[in-house]
């Protein structure tokens, strides 16, 4: 199999997915319910990416003290909710992870 063909095909598919709605905008009138979903995209998509990173260890849900990333993540969630500062959130999250891994 030619790796370069594979690359072009996969690049075209990936670009096509990313370009799909951007290209279609203005050429079709999306239904109202579709428009109502869109404001939730950042929250739903990014939480879907994040939750498994915090709750799962090797595919298992671990809620105990052994899951440092879960507790460090909860610290980050609280810091983000109170101070709404990106760098502070990341700093406190890493600090919490560092401490939790060593107690």
């Amino acid at each position, binding site marked *: *199999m030619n*790796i*370069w*063909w*594979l*690359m072009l*095909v*996969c690049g075209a*598919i*990936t*670009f096509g*997915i*990313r*370009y*799909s*709605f*951007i*290209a279609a*905008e*203005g050429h079709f009138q999306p239904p109202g*319910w*579709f428009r*109502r*979903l*869109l*404001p*939730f*995209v*950042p*929250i*739903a*998509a*990014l*939480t*879907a*990416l*994040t*939750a*498994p*990173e915090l*709750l*799962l260890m090797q*595919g298992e*849900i671990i809620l105990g003290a052994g899951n440092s*990333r879960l507790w460090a*993540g909860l610290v*980050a*969630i609280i810091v*983000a*909710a109170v101070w*709404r*500062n*990106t*760098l502070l*959130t*990341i700093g406190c*999250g*890493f600090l919490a*992870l560092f401490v939790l*891994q060593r107690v």
Partner: protein
Amino acid sequence: MKAAEAFSLGLRAVMPILVGVVPFGVIYGVVALQSGIPALAAMAMSAIVFAGSAQFLLAQLVGVGAPLLLIAGAVGMVNLRHALYSASVAPILAHLPRRWKILLAYLLTDEAYAAAIPHILVVAPNSSRSAQAHWILFGSGFGLWAGWQLATLGGVLIGAQLPSNLDLDFALPLTFIAIVVPLIDSRARLLAAVTAGAAAVAMAAMPYKLGLFVAAMAGLVAGAAMPRRAK
């Protein structure tokens, strides 16, 4: 806000994410070489496909000699969630010339979208047209793109000697937390987050990251379905 300021805003917003993405890119370079992909092709992959988790899958499937159609289908499924980002930014980019739309679609990744979206919501509330929103997206997209290419180069050249257990990848979920939590300003949005998060954990075992896409869809529907009064 001028175009240069908006570009710089996007670029700065993606910097914390690069802390997590660069080690990921280095590891991709190593995995690609181990799968028998030549160095030049491994780097070209980062430029042409430009999709982190799909490139990992691609390298693994090439390593086990999977057929082209299966690999292409798998890459498509892994990247399906990017259609949501495309739909999300489409109204904001509607007025732009096609070359801008093509450029920003090419750069539209989880990370670039995540970094740009809080700032886009400020300059273009309710998906209104804005003279600057596309420059913010270009700034975050370009920053991530440059970091990803350099990381791949690093992985291909010196990869295996780098320490891999530094927990730097944790920068990614932390940055997403920093972005998402301040956006949750209503019960409908909270419901969308909780639904998407719980569904993603429940469906984490689905192949090709399809669970992510289904979970995100579940979150969208849950948020939109909440009665307006309760919001």
